[in-house]
């Protein structure tokens, strides 16, 4: 086989792969614009006969999905900002500050790194019930405010930062808080960007815990609202596809705009990890 025909074959395979990867999402988008009933036809339609926005209108008016979009946005942004602050402080301390029992703390945290979060959910629910956090934003936000994985990545990245920078600031009389905020944070910005995107996407997409802790439809995040809706509207394919688009679009947009930071971060983290 010549190099040329090998290249053609290779790109045909790559193209077919891309079609398989994107196909379901493209169909979701197309079906969301189809008039009611058109997605349930034989042979299946690929494109809407006459595109309509009626399902989006129904979702945002009668079904009030805008409320859930707002809930998801508030929760995902709050978790991202708070966890970035809390994880970066902890990661920095574990990497650069000297104090007793630091290694023990690090080892204990590491032990929890791969534990599945589901194991904590039953007692956590009972605890939150006592604390009055059931069916509240805080009930979703609090368990995600600190992440062992995030602390880990930040510690790893911060270890590579030269100590001279910190010592120079200390000689200039800067406080430890000031050193963290004005010296360390600017240096570790790349890993913070990666973790911010990672946290935002994970919180937005999270399903099980919000499903457990939120009981009122007006408090539901988008995935919980969508799962709830899909039970009642199982026949309304086009409506459900519009709901799926509304749920996926924000994370897709964040990913596409910031993918450079995200993909590089995942690849760098994995090599070290």
């Amino acid at each position: 086989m010549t190099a040329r025909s090998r290249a053609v074959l290779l790109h045909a395979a790559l193209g077919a792969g891309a079609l398989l990867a994107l196909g379901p999402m493209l169909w979701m988008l197309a079906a969301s614009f189809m008039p009611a009933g058109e997605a349930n036809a034989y042979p299946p339609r690929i494109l809407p006969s006459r595109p309509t926005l009626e399902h989006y209108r129904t979702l945002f008016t009668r079904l009030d999905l805008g409320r859930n979009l707002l809930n998801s946005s508030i929760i995902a942004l709050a978790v991202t900002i708070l966890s970035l602050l809390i994880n970066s402080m902890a990661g920095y301390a574990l990497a650069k500050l000297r104090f007793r029992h630091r290694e023990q703390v690090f080892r204990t945290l590491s032990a929890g790194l791969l534990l599945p979060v589901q194991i904590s959910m039953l007692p956590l629910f009972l605890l939150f019930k006592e604390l009055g956090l059931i069916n509240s934003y805080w009930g979703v936000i609090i368990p995600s405010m600190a992440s062992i994985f995030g602390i880990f990545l930040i510690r790893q990245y911060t270890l590579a930062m030269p100590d001279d920078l910190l010592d120079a600031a200390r000689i200039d009389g800067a406080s430890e808080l000031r050193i963290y905020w004005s010296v360390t944070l600017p240096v570790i910005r790349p890993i913070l960007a990666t973790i911010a995107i990672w946290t935002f996407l994970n919180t937005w997409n999270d399903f099980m815990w919000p499903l457990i802790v939120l009981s009122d439809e007006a408090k539901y995040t988008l995935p919980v609202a969508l799962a709830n809706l899909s039970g009642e509207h199982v026949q309304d394919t086009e409506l459900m596809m519009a709901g799926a688009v509304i749920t996926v679009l924000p994370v897709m947009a964040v990913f596409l705009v910031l993918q450079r930071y995200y993909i590089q971060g995942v690849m760098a983290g994995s090599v070290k990890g």
Partner: protein
Amino acid sequence: MRPGAPSSAEQRTAGWLFLAPALLLIGCFFFLPVGASLLLSFTDFDIYAIADPANVRLVGFRNYAELLASPLFRTALKNTFYFVALGGPLTVAVSLGAALLVNARLTRFKSLFRTLYFAPFVTTLVAVAIVWRYLYHPEYGLLNYALGFVGLGPVDWLGDPRWAMPAIVLLAVWKNFGYHMLIFIAGLQAIPEELYEAAYLDGAGPWRQFRHVTLPMLGPTMAFVGLVTMIGFFQLFAEPYVMTQGGPLRSTTSLVLLMYEEGFRWWRMGYAAAVAFVLFLLILAVMLAHRMVRGGETA
């Protein structure tokens, strides 16, 4: 600070203060509940206990005895293993295949393909599970329509107990392969070019280069991807919750779905905690097996 220099009082205080919020949160809302989960599994905590905690009694291993005797638990255990055993290797294979294609010397627009293949990973699982439910529709679904062209089917993907779990596996592979592909690409790029040159000079063709250079060099990456995939797949929940509600005939009821139903639908929290603890033991076993394999490699 120079290595070996003593820590100043200021640094000691700052260290603990910086750590405090994270340790408090992780301690109170993760480690403590994980421990409490074990305790809970030795009680008869149920809906009466939710009304009044005075109704809780210690029952020893009764929940575990009940689990072992329960056909539903055995089904959930079997389903979960089936999902992991089918989905794990398939994910590793597809991710590696995609990584080899994207990373091939002749490939153009590498970063474009990388992004496209990664896109399913960032989507919302609940949303794409609903999309796939319609793609799997026995009459109108695109999948059966496409299979019709090659003379296969129609398959009642989510309605047939034999096909429901493979259908969920397919969705899970589609959703996850992009992430592991990135890890494999990073692994491939770390293989020194000289190894391929040496193999080439020894007369090795592409296949033998793959067998004797790429695969051995990717060993640790493969073990890592396998571990992460398996641990993730043991936690199967949203797909059956949204697509099949654990059916048909319980063929897609996973351990976590069982835990959710027992704990949060029937409020049998003691029993559900025992299910959670079995999950914990399974994942612990996987982690230990991984450590032994890796230890064997470095030795």
